[in-house]
């Protein structure tokens, strides 16, 4: 029968500030008891030797529900339509700029 360390220690009467030592399967085990500052994690941490030396894995930030709302730049230029006809043009004079009629009252301060 295998039991987690948390479950096993739950069966032991522990007092904060005390250190308990014992031998289990030829190993020396020390348990130091203190008041938890934060709620105990639900998952036990792996023994340090498992990941010793390995860099800590960065946790991917949770993706936003609004990522799809980002505006995009066009990834292609829409092609010009097929030609109707070709024409060679010569340089000419441009049309004069259109000057709108400005009402007289616009000039009164």
């Amino acid at each position, binding site marked *: 029968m295998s039991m987690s360390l948390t479950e096993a220690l739950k069966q032991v009467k522990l007092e904060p500030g005390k250190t308990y030592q014992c031998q289990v399967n030829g190993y020396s085990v020390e348990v130091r008891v203190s008041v938890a500052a934060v709620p105990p994690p639900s998952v036990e941490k792996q023994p340090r030797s498992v990941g010793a030396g390995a860099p800590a894995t960065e946790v991917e930030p949770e993706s936003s529900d609004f990522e799809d709302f980002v505006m*995009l730049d066009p990834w292609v230029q829409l092609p010009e339509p097929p030609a109707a006809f*070709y024409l060679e043009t010569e340089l000419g004079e441009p049309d004069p700029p259109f000057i709108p009629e400005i009402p007289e009252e616009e000039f009164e301060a």
Partner: protein
Amino acid sequence: MIYRQIDTGEPLDQGDILDGCPILWIAGYDKDDLRAVETITTCERVIILTQTCDLANRKATAITVAVVRDAQALVEQHVVKASDIKGPIRAGRVWGWYFLPKSIELGVAEMIVDLRQLHTVRLDLLTALCLRGQRRGRLQPLYREHLAKHFADTYSRIGLPEPYPTD
């Protein structure tokens, strides 16, 4: 209803969609002599972008239009994917491309307004097109303002050389 059919004699307005508008493109040129260029003329479906107030007050004689492209044709040319149209383009999330839905009443399929290729056309030419019955319809208020906002944002947005640090 996003579109409305317009009587032939009604004045032009922002959001009017016209068929067969002649558009000139520069096809070729001699870099050593730019006095003569080779042009292509195509007849395109266009949408008017010039402000309603400028048209109403006859303050504009050169009208800004954008070419309206058939969405399905662009898919068949492998320019865009159908999923691109159903996704970001239809949602208005691509700068410079504005999606217009199909309309059985107007007889138009799904379209994309290409706001990155603008042209200026004479007012009297567009009026002549209307009188010839080539005005397909008009984008209704609110929708045309939505298009105008996208048009304005496309050209007023500020691009940063790189994202600023957020640490």
